[in-house]
């Protein structure tokens, strides 16, 4: 190993410091303590520091400046410094290559797989909020099941489920307000459900009806609504990240008590736009929350073939962004993490990165069969043992907020609403042909007027070539 004790200690102190900021319980950190690698005088300081974190309130997250200071290493002569345009650094005679990530950043969790709280204390949720979170997760789950089937029956052309990742979108949405603007990837309809997008509105989009806000122009699941501050989904990966930074800058300039929130997957972190957005956000001090759904798979590419860093979280730190890793299958942990992130983001005008570890239990989309590239038992393990909806249900049941009767009622009610919504959408009209040409620009330019005219001539000659359900 190339790293030395001192740099290792510095790294660890920073790591623990970051955990402290978002209230990682001490027992989650203990396994990652350095054993042989702490040098003499520093170990005392570390132990003091370490002991302190266990008694800190869960939601304590102050500036990380203190532990930056504490991270000075023992073999450095602090009087010898190099001043350069980027600041002042101390000089050392030791050639210490910093290690690649050998210590995995721990993952913040509140509820274990059985819905039992493992955190010593956490902000209790109201029954109302908890039940809404659960109901919305069930709604999302049910919607996925039924739309997936609708696609299989050929009623819609495409679909993409959130299965296994329900806690991330619902947990985060619950921690935000509707003034926070969302720049989604595409696996975040949970946020829309939380904000009140109706099942009929989802169906309208998937069926491309006249009521679809996107006017039938995009594939299913490309939702968007200005009423709910949810920017329209576009398929390219990670392109929405820099948009969120620009929007956040606008919110900051307008002195709004709101932030921008953008979602993306583990694959998205390999895109240039990920780099661009994180770097811009840090430099511009934009109040944006980056939420990475690290679900292990970018279509068929596992994270081991995607990056060699310890996920996304360490990269946030490298860009100068306060970052946290959270159990993405723990809705309560996601909720608390995003709530804390939002507070820091808005009050301190700074970006925050939250990496949620999870698993894509469904296929990438209806065009994918994931059993071709990953073992079925891996999928089954996550479906059976780590399901976020079941975990949250156990917790609300422990609290006495939920019963089997309510469960059965909810599921059958959502199912019925969905089947109705599909029926309505299937019978609904499409928008007239003129909508093919509008909205390219604010006004129709002459070339589009000509092309519309010429298309209408072609239609008259060969009407059989065109779909009959589009009104001319």
């Amino acid at each position, binding site marked *: 190993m190339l790293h030395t004790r001192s740099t290792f200690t510095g790294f660890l102190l920073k790591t623990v410091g970051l955990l402290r900021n978002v209230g990682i319980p001490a027992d989650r950190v203990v396994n990652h303590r350095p054993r042989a690698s702490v040098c003499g005088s520093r170990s005392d300081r570390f132990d003091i520091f370490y002991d302190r974190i266990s008694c800190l309130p869960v939601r304590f997250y102050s500036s990380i400046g203190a532990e930056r200071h504490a991270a000075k290493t023992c073999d450095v002569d602090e009087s010898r410094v190099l001043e350069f345009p980027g600041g002042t650094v101390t000089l050392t005679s030791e050639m210490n290559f910093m290690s690649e990530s050998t210590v995995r950043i721990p993952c913040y969790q509140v509820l274990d797989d059985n819905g039992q709280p493992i955190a010593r204390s956490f902000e209790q949720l109201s029954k109302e909020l908890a039940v809404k979170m659960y109901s919305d997760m069930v709604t999302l789950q049910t919607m996925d099941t039924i739309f997936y089937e609708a696609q299989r029956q050929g009623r819609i052309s495409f679909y993409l489920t959130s299965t296994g990742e329900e806690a991330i979108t619902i947990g985060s949405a619950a921690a935000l307000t509707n003034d926070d603007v969302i720049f989604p990837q595409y696996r975040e309809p949970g946020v829309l459900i939380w904000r009140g997008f109706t099942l009929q509105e989802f169906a309208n989009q998937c069926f491309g009806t006249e009521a679809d806000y*996107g006017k039938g122009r995009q594939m299913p699941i490309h939702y968007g609504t200005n009423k709910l501050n949810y920017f329209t989904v576009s398929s390219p990966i990670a392109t929405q990240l820099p948009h969120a930074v620009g929007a956040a800058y606008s919110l900051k300039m307008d002195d709004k008590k709101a932030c921008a929130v953008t979602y993306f997957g583990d694959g998205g972190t390999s895109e240039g736009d990920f780099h661009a957005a994180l770097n811009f956000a840090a430099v511009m001090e934009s109040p944006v929350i980056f939420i990475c759904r690290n679900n292990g798979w970018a279509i068929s590419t596992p994270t081991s073939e995607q990056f060699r860093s310890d996920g996304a979280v360490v990269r946030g730190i490298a860009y100068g962004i306060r970052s946290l890793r959270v159990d993405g299958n723990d809705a309560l942990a996601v909720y608390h993490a995003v709530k804390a992130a939002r507070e820091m983001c808005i009050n301190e005008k700074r970006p925050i990165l939250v990496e949620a570890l999870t698993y894509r239990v469904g296929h990438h989309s209806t065009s994918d069969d994931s059993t071709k590239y990953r073992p079925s038992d891996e999928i089954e393990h996550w479906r059976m043992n780590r399901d976020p909806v079941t975990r949250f249900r156990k917790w609300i049941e422990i609290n006495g907020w939920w019963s089997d009767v309510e469960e059965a009622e909810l599921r059958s009610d959502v199912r019925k609403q969905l089947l109705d919504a599909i029926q309505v959408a299937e019978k609904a009209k499409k928008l007239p042909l003129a909508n093919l040409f509008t909205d390219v620009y604010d006004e129709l330019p002459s070339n589009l007027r000509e092309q519309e005219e010429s298309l209408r001539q072609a239609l008259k000659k060969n009407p059989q070539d065109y779909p009959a359900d589009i009104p001319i």
Partner: protein
Amino acid sequence: MAATLVRLSRGVSICRRSMSTFSGQDHVETTKGKRMNLFSAINQALHIALETDPRSYLFGEDVGFGGVFRCTTGLAERFGKQRVFNTPLCEQGIVGFGIGLAAMGNRAIAEIQFADYIFPAFDQIVNEAAKFRYRSGNQFNCGGLTIRSPYGAVGHGGHYHSQSPESFFCHVPGIKVVIPRSPLQAKGLLLASIRDPNPVVFFEPKWLYRQAVEEVPDHDYMLPLSEAEVIRQGSDITLVGWGAQLSVMEEACADAAKEGISCELIDLKTLIPWDKETVEASVRKTGRLLVSHEAPVTGGFGAEISAAIVERCFLRLEAPVARVCGLDTPFPLVYEPFYMPTKNKILEAIKSTINY
């Protein structure tokens, strides 16, 4: 082409090409103005844009200190570093950030330092900015976005400080592409682009930043987009161009006139959506068309103009449409004088079209 070297800021220098300047008289009231070069006119337009709209922002690489071409001089001092600022060196970030800013109802004026470096932002422009309104059913738009970028030959810019990438962007429904030919035009077209409710890619002819000097009205004015302008009346042949190339074409027209050929010269100004009607009307009159641009001939926007005019004026044409353009090579340093669509190449093409 004369080769007097003129030093620009930060080691950028250009070869002086002999040129005349035009005063575009259309749409601009003749009011008091000063003689100024193109970068000063751009600077004046940016001052007006930021002054007249408190929700306007200007940003890009090295914009804060005034920019490598001095277009943004004095703006950060005047409007503050929150509204006029440097960005990290990352073109996709600049445009992506600008889209988000514009989507929140701001005017985002983004600078890409050289058009040669716009390609990392191509995805953001093509897949995001251009489709933002359409894909959302007009629920969202980023119409407040204007991307300014210096383009074109500069005398010794080689591969990466000389390109004219306009045709790539002309293939993208949803954006507008605008290129001015002179200081007066630059000011009016830039203000119109910034205030247009659609994303605009605004290419500035860097060769003209210092070379083109003319009187520019002091006041706030805009020149219409998607309107071409006949800048020289003639009856034998129509020439269509844009940006810096117009000065070369103007010289060719003057030389042709000495040989008794009457040329009509049109500045297209906006490449998409373009003003076919003005070009068509001219070609119906002259019966001949020549298009000229610095970008490589194959797939250049001249091809589109040529095809569209042949469709509309086939029976009126007396000769094939001539294209005098850059060669299908990377932009070559020492061979630049060979690569360029020079005055005499144009003059010869005019004559062979007339004598066809």
